[in-house]
């Protein structure tokens, strides 16, 4: 197996979106997610010497990130009693005196599973995006996720419009088959 090299200069550019999606599914807060990623990169930098090259950079960074997320939850739960789950059955005054059964969530409503699927979609998508050639991935991201104008991208990347559409077409074909394999 080829030994994996480490190159911290590209970390932010290459992995921040993937890690961000990974984090946001677990902490549900943009600000905290950003902080955690930033901490992860810094921690990675500090322990770069320990990187043995047995896994890819991304796997290694995710491993660090996992610790950071766990730490984050530990910290918020460190005060005694906070970890305890408290439930109040009468939250609103309007429902006061209603039977408990009437307040059970509608089972045909959006379920937790829907949410889990949706949150992991981002991770899957960025995973596929990571497999594309760098230029394709960048242009696809600009066009599709960040909703840039065609002209703006052409100017920035210094390509013609037809050139852009060819790249988009290739990226879309690759993304569609990748998502079909990994998602559906």
């Amino acid at each position, binding site marked *: 197996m080829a030994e994996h090299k480490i190159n*911290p*200069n590209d*970390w*932010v*550019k290459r992995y*921040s*979106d993937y890690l*961000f*999606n990974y984090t*946001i599914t677990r902490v549900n807060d*943009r600000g905290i997610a*950003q902080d955690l*990623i*930033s901490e992860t*990169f*810094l921690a990675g*930098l*500090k322990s770069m010497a320990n990187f043995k090259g047995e896994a890819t950079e991304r796997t290694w960074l995710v491993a660090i990130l996992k610790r950071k997320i766990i730490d984050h939850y530990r910290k918020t739960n460190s005060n005694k009693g906070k970890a305890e789950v408290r439930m109040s059955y009468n939250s609103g005054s309007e429902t006061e005196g209603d039977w408990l059964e009437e307040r059970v969530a509608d089972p045909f409503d959006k379920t937790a599973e829907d949410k889990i699927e*949706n*949150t992991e*979609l*981002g991770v899957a*998508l960025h995973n596929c995006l990571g497999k594309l050639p760098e230029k394709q991935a960048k242009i696809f*991201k600009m*066009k*599709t*996720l*960040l909703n840039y104008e*065609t002209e703006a991208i052409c100017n920035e990347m210094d390509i013609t419009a037809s050139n852009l*559409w060819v790249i*988009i*077409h290739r990226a*879309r074909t690759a*993304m*569609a088959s990748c*998502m*079909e394999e990994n*998602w559906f």
Partner: protein
Amino acid sequence: MIKLKVECREANHICDKKQYKEASLREKIVLTFHLLYCRACRKYTARNTKLTKLVKNPRVETLNTSAKHKLQQAFKAELRKQQ
């Protein structure tokens, strides 16, 4: 009378454009007509539309550019300290 028949390559290009709402009315008509008789392009269009739907999902997050820039700055500063 507009030319109704197009090649598959052209049809796919229109389909790509349509995903970003950049296809003109004429192009949309041509594409619909093409899809009537071309099975391969129907398949491509279906996949393409599905991908668009996935990407449009609000759960797909990207860090905005300024946040990324900030991250990069902080990171560079730390990198310099290390060396």
